[in-house]
């Protein structure tokens, strides 16, 4: 029995059919439904379900809550990612040094990453409390009359949220950078040393160029995760004070599941999806250019 070339063409499709069906049901259908819902005004509690075309998309830019969410999301993503890269590389370099207890440090450094964000958020709500929090308790050991409630002012609440995000995910970023560092041969550093390069020169001339591609690759998922963060603020600040720490993903969740404004939430989700797709495309372009 032989199978013709024409029939062979269908075999791979048959083999991946289960995956296509599962993907279609769990990913493509929800995306299609979300796109459709974004063109409707759907308010479950009021029983409203009307086609409104692009009105939801226009209203997004007139809604002060969304403007505030977009503003904080941009700040959150940019500041958090800058610190991820700078501190992540620094931490990776430390973890790459040869010292006693290095293996132990590499293990415990990942503990915050392994903890659920909601748990961290709830703990942070207490941690930043003026009366009972460990942050102020620590500061008061140096400044005895220090009084400050981090979560009631816009700037400090935003800083606290970013700090907790870094505390949780920075070690994971560092460990992934570390894996890149370990691919750099020791011979290169030896040769540089022989040529008279000091530590700083070695870092900027050897280490950094060789891990740049690795770091940029890591920046794609880490940025996308920042864009979809909602659990941390959900547990830590509930988006407050006011709406000042409402990340866009948190706002989508609130609109969809608490306020039940399904159409509006779908619009926000589509817009976030487009931003994420655009960002990924841009990153891939940059990486391709670097390869060339």
């Amino acid at each position, binding site marked *: 029995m032989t199978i013709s070339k024409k029939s062979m063409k269908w075999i791979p499709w048959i083999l991946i059919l289960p995956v296509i069906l599962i993907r279609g049901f769990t990913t493509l259908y929800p995306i299609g439904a979300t796109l459709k819902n974004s063109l409707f005004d759907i308010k479950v509690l009021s029983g409203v379900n009307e086609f409104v075309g692009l009105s939801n998309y226009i209203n997004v830019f007139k809604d002060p809550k969304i403007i505030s969410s977009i503003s904080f999301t941009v700040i959150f993503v940019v500041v958090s990612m800058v610190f991820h890269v700078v501190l992540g590389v620094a931490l990776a370099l430390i973890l790459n040094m040869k010292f006693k207890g290095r293996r132990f440090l590499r293990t415990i450094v990942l503990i915050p990453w392994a903890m659920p964000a909601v748990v961290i958020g709830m703990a942070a709500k207490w941690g930043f409390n003026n*009366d009972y929090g460990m942050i102020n308790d620590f500061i008061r050991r140096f400044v005895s009359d220090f009084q400050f409630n981090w979560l009631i002012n816009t700037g400090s609440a935003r800083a606290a949220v970013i700090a907790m995000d870094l505390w949780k995910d920075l070690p994971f970023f560092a460990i992934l950078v570390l894996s890149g560092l370990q691919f750099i041969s020791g011979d290169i550093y030896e040769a540089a040393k022989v040529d008279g390069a000091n530590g700083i020169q070695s870092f900027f001339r050897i280490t950094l160029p060789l891990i740049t591609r690795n770091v940029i690759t890591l920046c794609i998922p880490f940025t996308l995760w920042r864009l979809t963060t909602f659990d941390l603020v959900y547990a830590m600040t509930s988006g407050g004070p006011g709406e000042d720490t409402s990340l866009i993903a948190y706002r989508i969740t609130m609109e969809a599941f608490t306020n039940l404004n399904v159409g509006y939430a779908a619009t926000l989700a589509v817009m976030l999806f487009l931003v994420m797709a655009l960002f990924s495309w841009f990153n891939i372009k940059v990486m391709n250019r670097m390869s060339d």
Partner: protein
Amino acid sequence: MKKTVSILLTTALAAGMLAGCGGNSSETKEEGSSAKKGDYDLTLYSINTTDPDFDDWLKNVEDATGLKINVIAAPTDSDTRQQKITTILSTGDSSVDIIEINDEMSASFKNSGWLEGLNDTVMTEDIRGEFPQGYLEDMITDKDGNIIGVPGYSGYLAFWVNQEIMDEVGIASIDTKEDFVKYMEAVSGDGRYGYGGSWEKTYVFNEIAQFVNMFGGDYFDWTNPANKEAIQFLHDMVQNGQTPIDQIADKYEQMNPKANDGKYGSWFMWGLGTDYEKADMLGADKIHMAMVPDFSGKGQRAIFTDSWSYVLNKASENKEAAVKFLEYMADEGGMEASYKAFDRYPARADVAAKVVPDTDPAKEMYSRYAEECNVAGRPMLPQTMEFITDMGTIYQSCMKDEITVDDFCKKAQELVDKYSK
């Protein structure tokens, strides 16, 4: 040949997986539903499962009704709980028959058509009069006059004071607005405040509405001068250091430890003081409920009442059993069981008089609240959480001086107009 066999095998495997998936899933579903039907008469979505006495309560209910009850624990986080319950009801999910809902959910769901009316079955005319009328009308009656729930208990947004602080400053009672102001001035200072609250944006609504009520205002009419007076009063308390601005980050779990630590002289709070009791701070000489001050000067005291109500999912397929359950919960036996297991003060006045012993410190004050105060349900609109959150957001801005009191009143009226549509 090898190639052909391997292709056939993998094709068969893929086809088998697909067929297997479909076959198994439908079989499991049928088995699951028939097993469920056979084992249980109804399913209850409960908020009390973490209570140590829950099993005793469940046994009591099952013995009294003869029903076998399947219990699903509701999430303890309020937002998550509301999301889950909304999803169950809005999708016509029949896997849950009875659900416990709070006032926020009642306001959202009562006119949605998702809940079964109980006028002819459970909340019949003969017992209706025994429940707090203001609560029944404001919170759990739909636009067509159908009562959609059985109140599981009767709670008040009680006025709490710290007696040790009162004794220290030499103030015996806080009966009028002037007494309240004097108390604020006497207590506040050195990290202590005359009044404390939980002003997190989704919690502060209770206190805004309470003060508006005490000043004789109307929460749905922000052109009313009494509303502005109430907000100005709260704003001045912040400015004068009589209540802390820090509390805009606080929910009840942050507020109560501060009350226990003697940081606050007075506050409004639901419940019978379980958190104070746990800290050994509940008592006539420590933390206790007091009569709400009369800010009107006309002997009119205002207080809010709340409850969690048992409601019947309209999509339920076990309505007969569900009605039997609800009848028991509306009856003396069910209310007594809830009081004993969960410290829930009976919603029916006649049952409370019989079941609650005179030694219970809440009994006297709850009876006085019922007799001496204008008892009402909280002012809510169908888009409840959105309205509450938006009001909380502008209130926080006002207290932080980001907007003026006049701006607050203007924006509050806009929100009322927006969410009343």
